[in-house]
């Protein structure tokens, strides 16, 4: 597993909640820090990368695991 600073579990939540919770979490983090976020909502799979690109966070990786979709996001400036 790649190194990360924070984790956020959004399993069981539907759109728009995974993006809302991820945004709130990222707002508390410093630039350059990495969040490991997990969601079970297939809709969020396209939205998280699109949102991250829009607001300037870096999507380090996306992985489809048994637990759900795992995103590693690095906070932008």
């Amino acid at each position: 597993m790649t190194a990360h600073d924070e984790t956020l579990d959004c399993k069981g939540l539907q759109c728009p909640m995974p993006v809302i919770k991820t945004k709130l979490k990222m707002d508390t983090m410093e630039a350059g820090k990495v969040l490991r976020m997990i969601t079970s909502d297939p809709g969020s799979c396209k939205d998280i990368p699109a949102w991250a690109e829009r607001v300037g966070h870096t999507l380090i990786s996306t992985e489809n695991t048994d637990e759900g979709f795992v995103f590693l996001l690095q906070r932008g400036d």
Partner: protein
Amino acid sequence: MYSFTALELFNSLESGKNCLIIDVRNQSDFEESHVEMPGAVEVVNIPYFDFIEDEETTVAIVPKNIDLKIICAKEASSVFVAAVLEGNGYESIGFLEGGYAMWQDLLVAKQLHSQPYQLWQFIRPAKASCSYAVAKNGEMFIFDPSRNVEFYQQFASQNGCEISHVFETHLQADYISGGPAFEAIYAVHEDDFKDSSFNYHAISDGENYDLDGVTIKVIHSPGHTPGSTCYIIDKEWMITGDTVFIVSIGRPDLGGKVVEWSRQLYATLKQRISVLPESLKVLPGHFSDWSKEVSDDGSICSTFGQIIQNNEDIYGINDVELFVEFIQSHMRAQPEIYSQIRLVNTGHLDPCPDERQSMDIGKNQCAASQQP
């Protein structure tokens, strides 16, 4: 805040009511497919997460004093955006019940004939495709049904009918067929369905099917696929599948044998289709451009004579090699999902309902030539 169904949205747009659709899905889903109609539709894409990230700036670009219709993928995000807008003083805001998925599956019935038999065209706006029903005295034949089998079953029972036969014009590659799911005779051409995993009734060229005195004649018309078939109803209508469109013809390059199938299509057009009466009213499997192909009554239908006139660039070609060149010069990539959809439609792949829905998204890419 109010809610609306996909059919209410269609009817409201068709009647020309003024509104602005805000599609709040992500940009790539929006670009793949969004609400289109015969007339102009005001639609903008503002992803819901823009409202999360920067509410003030995002709300500022939404006009006031117009009815807003919000669409997301499933529903919850459009309710969220509608609530944000309400909180900012907007007054007339609706959201689509069930989200874009409902628009994707919407079928709109247009009755084309009522006595002594009934004929309906079911337009699927999101796919730009058409299926059909012919009924008489409580019996109904369905042609080219899409995935929403429940719709056809309800439609039949509302009209006091039992569905006895389901016909395909060909093995569909661009949408998942509902055909195999009906408890009815599944009538298809062997050249397209011989490898399928389910039982079917093989139709053949020249056969007539009787619907209480109404004759449905089978015309084998290979080219788009080897088993492509047209059905002539009561010598008046012709269901053409992906062989004849109002604009263009069905592309013969989807099977990876463009030269062979183009030659076959040329022979079909010259020897089997062009010889038919020009008075036949053509009922196509698809359309590409609402503005050019929709009739005043909202149906997708034109006489064969009119079609020959309007597609002189195709029907005017009198040399098979020139025809092959024409096809090749208009070729474009086919969506990757088509090979998967063919597997589903022959019973070799059985995805779960959610997967079926996502495989079935997007407008058809079936015409040989597309005008800009």
